[in-house]
């Protein structure tokens, strides 16, 4: 057992971990932040995407020990303190960018990272950025629409009503 310390959603967090403890397990089991999901556990599905030092990564494919001293943001850190949803979260609700919701934390975290890198992505750029996020319910149409809307762009062009 070793001790790890990092900043999670702006607050200091530390705990005992094994060498093999994955970041996602430290977040979920160690800190009780169960918003970050484990879908495939093989770095395919993207349900576990969090930001480490501002970069989107798959929390099931990085060890907690490697995040020593890092600043981690999870889905729990995206809304404002008073619960006001971020633009991306709000757009997912407005445009129904989810069905069962399992993939949604990862989708939102990837979308937030995309919009930080590229504030007005095209539909093609959004779809390309989501290559590592899998939704098995309902397809990507409304997810893409929500991200386009969150970036302040017209969504009527991609609307398949």
């Amino acid at each position, binding site marked *: 057992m*070793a001790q790890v310390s990092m900043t999670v959603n702006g607050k200091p967090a530390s705990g005992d971990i094994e060498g093999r403890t994955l970041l996602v397990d430290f977040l979920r089991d160690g800190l009780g932040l169960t918003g970050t999901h484990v879908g495939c556990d093989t770095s395919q599905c993207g349900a576990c995407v969090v930001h480490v030092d501002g970069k989107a990564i798959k929390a099931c494919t990085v060890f907690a020990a490697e995040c020593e001293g890092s600043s981690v943001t999870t889905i729990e850190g995206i809304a404002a303190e008073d619960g006001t949803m971020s633009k991306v979260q709000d757009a997912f609700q407005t445009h129904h960018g989810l069905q069962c919701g399992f993939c949604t934390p990862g989708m939102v975290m990837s979308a937030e990272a995309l919009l930080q890198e590229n504030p007005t992505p095209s539909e093609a750029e959004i779809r390309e950025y989501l290559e590592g996020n899998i939704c098995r319910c309902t397809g990507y149409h409304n997810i893409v629409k929500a991200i386009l809307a969150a970036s302040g762009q017209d969504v009527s062009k991609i609307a398949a009503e």
Partner: protein
Amino acid sequence: MYAFDIERPSTVSDAVKLLKESDENQPLSGGQTLIPTLKQRLAAPEKLISLTGIDEMKGICEDDDGRLCIGAATCHADVAAGAGKYPALAALARQIGDPAVRNRGTLGGSLANNDPSACYPSAVLGSGATVVTNSREIAADDYFQGMFATALEEGEIITEVKFPVPEKACYMKFEQPASRFALVGVFVAKYADGVRVAVTGASEEGVFRWTEAEEKLNSDFSSSALEGMSPPADNMISDLHGSGAYRAHLVGVMARRAVDAAH
């Protein structure tokens, strides 16, 4: 995963020292292949030596010979964004995996693993790059030694790769859509002293130079010079995604497209 410890040294020399403490110690770079391998219990290190905290192994610069020098622990996203001097290399990095994988996976990790379908080996071999380790420099032609096999010795760490910048180049990847590895990828680079063509994803021997195509392109750098050509299918990977004959055919197609798109 079996249990192991992790050490996170901040210098190359400390990392080498830790690796040499035991034959069962193993380096960990971005982990995008190694961690899934550990989960399947296909590896059981005593200790992982993480290379992600070593700043001297990160970053991109240019040396006095105009070569692009990339730290082995530089992630794919940083190469995609920072290798503008070598656009074909930046474009290759941008096509690896997905954005989250590109934020972790590293050049050195990809080369040390030498997956037969990985993208980077084709750029390194196709550029005639130099693989720098903690103890020596290895020419690309000597570095790759077959599927998952390299010239690296136990306890040796890739620290940097030096890429000569070609007049023009292009990487054409036929992506296997589920894994996003190359079903076949062809890297073509035209230098003042000749053309190099490196192929990944196709051969049972891992990345290889398609010398027959290089000879044709040396006298005429155009896709028509490769018309109807493909390498022999004998040694090609055959699996549920494609037969050896299909892969051999794709090598010809991808090479011609790469020549047409090279810039």
